[in-house]
């Protein structure tokens, strides 16, 4: 589904991504981990088209999408959330999600403005898509709230709902449980498990309970390089991974 080959991204002299190669198959839930500054978010930004790579290719669904604009990649079926939450702050929760859903309409802008019958019925059908998506992430009761007034944990859920409303095949989650407590984290894990029936998921996360709990496979980046790629248990015992996190010692956080 997703193939990343020799991906390299330089910022001036900094090699944020250095010759990274990996792939994600359809239906997989893959974790992307690594110490701060390892290049995880840069990797997301390049895949999603927010940044152009210095070298290497990104293939999605057998299409070479290297260097495509973010909106084009989104329309091909890749959705993402942001590490620093990026909602549409002045819009309601419902409108945030509806705005994402309408981008997939077959009816064009003009047909909708003119209120042609098929455009109307398509728009009406999207309303139930929005409700289903909100129910799935547990935000249906907050539909009417201005999104910037949501509690932090709900804002992260809203981002996931918005990503889902574009009906993606691949969804990129950038630290979905950052700053959440244990029970909120458990909710999100439950949600990711639900997603896997219809979506492929690539998730950046520092929370090891989530990574170990929901991922089929884990890819580890360190200093822009891929240092491990395999099943969670195997990666957890990998010498190079332990070294990357701790410089040699056993990492309490990693084991926990």
């Amino acid at each position: 589904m997703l193939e990343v080959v020799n991906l390299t991204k330089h910022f001036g002299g900094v090699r944020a991504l250095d010759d990274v190669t990996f792939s994600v198959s359809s239906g997989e839930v893959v974790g992307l981990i690594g110490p701060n500054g390892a290049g995880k978010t840069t990797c997301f930004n390049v895949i999603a088209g927010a940044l152009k790579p210095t070298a290497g290719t990104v293939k999605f669904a057998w299409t070479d999408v290297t260097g495509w604009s973010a909106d084009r990649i989104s329309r091909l079926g890749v959705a993402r959330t942001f590490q620093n939450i990026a909602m549409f702050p002045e819009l309601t929760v419902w409108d945030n999600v509806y705005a994402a859903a309408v981008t997939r309409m077959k009816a064009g802008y003009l047909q909708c403005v003119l209120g042609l019958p098929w455009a109307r019925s398509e728009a009406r059908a999207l309303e139930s898509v929005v409700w289903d998506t909100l129910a799935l992430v547990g935000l249906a009761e907050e539909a009417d709230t201005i999104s910037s007034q949501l509690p932090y944990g709900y804002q992260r859920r809203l981002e996931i709902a918005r990503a889902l409303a574009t009906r993606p095949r691949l969804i990129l989650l950038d630290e979905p449980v950052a700053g959440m407590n244990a029970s909120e984290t458990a909710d999100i894990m439950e949600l990711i498990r639900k997603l896997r029936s219809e979506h492929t998921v690539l998730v950046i996360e520092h929370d090891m309970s989530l990574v170990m709990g929901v991922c089929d496979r884990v890819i580890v980046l360190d200093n822009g390089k891929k240092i491990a790629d395999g099943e969670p248990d195997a990666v957890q015992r990998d010498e190079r991974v332990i070294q990357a996190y701790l410089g040699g010692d056993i990492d309490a956080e990693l084991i926990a």
Partner: protein
Amino acid sequence: MQTTVAQDAKSAIDERARKNTRSSLIAVAVLALVMFAVPVFVGDSPYLMQVAVTTLFFAALAQSLNLSMGFAGVVSFAQAAFYGIGAYTSALVALHFGVGFWGGFIAAILMTFVLAVILGLPTLRLGGPYLAIATIGLQVIIQSVLLRWTSLTKGPAGINNIVAPTLFGMQIRQGVSYYLMVAVWLMVIIVLLYRISRTRLGYELLATREAEGAALAIGVPVSRLRIAIFALSAALAGGTGSLYAHYIGSIDPYVFDLTLSATVLVMVLLGGRASIIGVTIGAAILTLLPEYLQAVSNYRMVLYGAGMVLLTLFFPKGLAGLAILRRSFGRGARKEQGEGVAGVDA
């Protein structure tokens, strides 16, 4: 997940959304009624009719800016320039090609649209304050061109004897009939904005305004959309300019200055971004107020400047944010205790 609660929320919100759609439709209808009723009461006073038609011109101009600035966040100080280009294009085309008002009107719309695309391609790459400053540049340059391209525009002398429009074989001159024609044009703009606000385009524009990166991530073609909406906004200003030129009969470059652009911008801020009713009321207030405050006319820009600062500081949502008005402003008003109205209003 908690299906019954979700169902309750859904039906409650659906019900409120229906009510709000109804109330914003009523608001638009009331507005139309007021607009078309004005001549009944002041039709026999040429002075008051002139004030009324001026209000319509300003309201149309403010709505055109509301489209680009209110919905898409493209802050532009060049709206008066496009208004001017529309006026000149229409007057010159009608004069030289003998196609009358209607030919000029269409030419004005096309010309401003195309010009805005050309000018928008480089400038709209900028965002925030940089874009605002670039549009000040556009405004000043366009006005200078109108002033100095004397072989075409006759420079400071301007263009005189602009033909009056004919409709169904009748000449429409100043007064009630012209007022009605401008009122129809304003209604066309308002209905267009209303439809945009309720459909796909409106949501994608608001997404662009709210967070560009996130808008791209959900698949909104942000750069193309910004250029398209800048051009559409310019074309509406251009059409309004054409109506103005054929109304007033003679135009010169001094009308289409930065002061006018700033005034229109304050109208949008006062009314509340993306609020169609709010901006109409804002335009009416700022047109009528100076009429009755002639004494302070020298200080008008000072007052507008201070007003702009106060508005952004204390009433970022403009009139549309006032609690009394909120109920009739549509969807954004759904949450009572929330102050969000800047979303999609009618």
